[in-house]
């Protein structure tokens, strides 16, 4: 059985002017353990809302989301808290997603404090140091505040925080879009390494087909709240079935050579 199963999720929002916006329209997909599903779409496609539903931050109007057999919406408080340990998130804006008044080591430690309150502080510090090392953060940044770090380092902190409880699923919402070109590769390679080591599944939300070409097992293309095409990466990229997918592929600005 797949690790994450989303079945017919629908979410409608009421707009201030009285109209209703169907942000997510009967979206279904599955995610197997250790694999990456890329959710590709432009602004307004609903991909971000789907991510929030999977995280349990927004309850869908209808449909089901199950992680490891446990349903996300409608879960009891205790069940939901247990789920939160198993699914984490990395956001797009590295600086915005970190509390400016917390030191890096405390930011990374927080999920441990919430889900393993019984863990002795020495063990916790050790875990934090170990994870920081794993994501490539030098020891000296642990005592610093987010604003003292570069964008790439800030995103590593976000990733460290996301992996510290060893979750089974990580939702990544455009994790490299706000980073410099030369740093993006570092972060993408880090994500790939972590996945190989921990067998984590990724729900990788992005607007950029080119970025996910190498890390995604499957791609789902969203537009206007619906999934217009879905399938293994190579199939979608090499023989796109839907016109919108073809448009997206055509819009990727290619370099003359592959370097």
């Amino acid at each position, binding site marked *: 059985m797949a690790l994450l199963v989303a079945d017919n999720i629908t979410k409608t929002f009421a707009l201030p002017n009285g109209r209703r916006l169907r942000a997510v329209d009967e979206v279904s997909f599955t995610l197997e353990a250790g694999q990456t599903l890329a959710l590709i779409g432009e602004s307004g496609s609903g991909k971000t809302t789907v991510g929030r539903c999977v995280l349990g931050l927004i309850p869908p109007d209808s449909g089901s989301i199950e992680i490891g057999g446990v349903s996300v919406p409608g879960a009891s408080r205790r069940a939901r808290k247990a789920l939160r340990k198993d699914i984490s998130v990395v956001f797009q804006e590295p600086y915005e997603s970190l509390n400016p008044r917390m030191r890096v080591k405390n930011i990374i430690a927080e999920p441990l404090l919430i889900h393993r309150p019984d863990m002795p502080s020495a063990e916790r510090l050790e875990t934090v140091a170990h994870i920081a090392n794993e994501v490539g953060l030098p020891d000296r940044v642990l005592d610093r505040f987010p604003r003292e770090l570069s964008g790439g380092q800030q995103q590593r902190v976000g990733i460290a925080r996301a992996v510290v409880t060893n979750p089974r699923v990580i939702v990544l919402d455009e994790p490299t879009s706000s980073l410099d070109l*030369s*740093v993006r*590769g*570092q972060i993408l390679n880090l994500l790939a390494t972590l996945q190989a080591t921990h067998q984590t599944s990724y729900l990788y939300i992005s607007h950029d087909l080119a970025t996910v070409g190498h890390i995604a097992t499957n791609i789902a293309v969203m537009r206007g709240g619906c999934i217009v095409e879905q399938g293994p990466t190579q199939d979608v990229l090499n023989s796109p079935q839907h016109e919108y997918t073809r448009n*997206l592929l055509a*819009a990727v*600005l*290619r*370099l003359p050579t592959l370097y």
Partner: protein
Amino acid sequence: MLVLDNLYTEFVTPNGHVHAVNGVDLQVKQGEILGLVGESGSGKSATIRSVLRLLPPSGQIVKGSIRLGDTELTTLSASGLRQIRGRRVGFVAQSPFGALNPILPLWKQFRNVLRSTGERVDRATVFEIGEELLGSVGITDPKRVLSGYAHELSGGMAQRVVISMSLLLKPDLVLADEPTTALDVTVQKQILELLRHRVQVLGAACVLVTHDLGVVANYCDRIAVMYAGKIVEAGTVADVFDEPAHPYTLALLKSVPQLGRPVASLPGGPPELLTYPTGCPFLPRCKFAIPLCASEAPPSEDVSAGHTSACHRRAEIATLRRAEVDT
């Protein structure tokens, strides 16, 4: 049309002087689109903003010259600059909604631009000119757009409006600072096509600042790569993309996500420009470095006609790159 000669711009911060632009030489000819490429901290935005002196109060040009045609811009008075802005130089910023006044109907904003030449224009004339211009940038109902407000437009449409406003007075130079970064990819292509077309019709020079090498490869004639406030490589797009002659350019090219290969990574990050290193600023991240790089800053010299690189090993990069692929 535009010549930057040995430009130095600094920002005064509580921590000291940030040397954002360090001796930049740049030329853009009429009818040519130059892609100015760099990451954060490269100085590309500071360079562009220095041209029109759109720097924050902490920024100042400390040395060098900026010539537009035969006008020297660095010594212009504030009123002189105002004459230039909008009229001889158009500016397209990253966020279209930042450039448009939210409370004025769009035709009034067009009118204000037209009025800045000192001419009186009535509503009918504004609409006439505006409708034609908006129609030419691909807006289907220009009359309605002109009568309406900025927030009624999508990002793509707003950027089209901004582009047409910047071209209204038929400038000699158009500066575009990441004009499509905030837009969806499908819209990006259209906007860039539009910009290129209009610039060529006008015969204006254009500097397109971007971090996206794909944009440069497809829409620019020449490219200048910036790192740590210096131009590290410049030349025609064909030359530079065929045979990059600087390790940074090569690394950047490898970092662009492209279907068909994994993304390469470059370790470390751009330098903070509080103090300027003696040798090459790219040294800490360069895999082809030699001892000379630490002691002597490489000058920008020709690799071939019209193709310069600021690297001691500029002639060897092609070979080094092939050697890398083979290993």
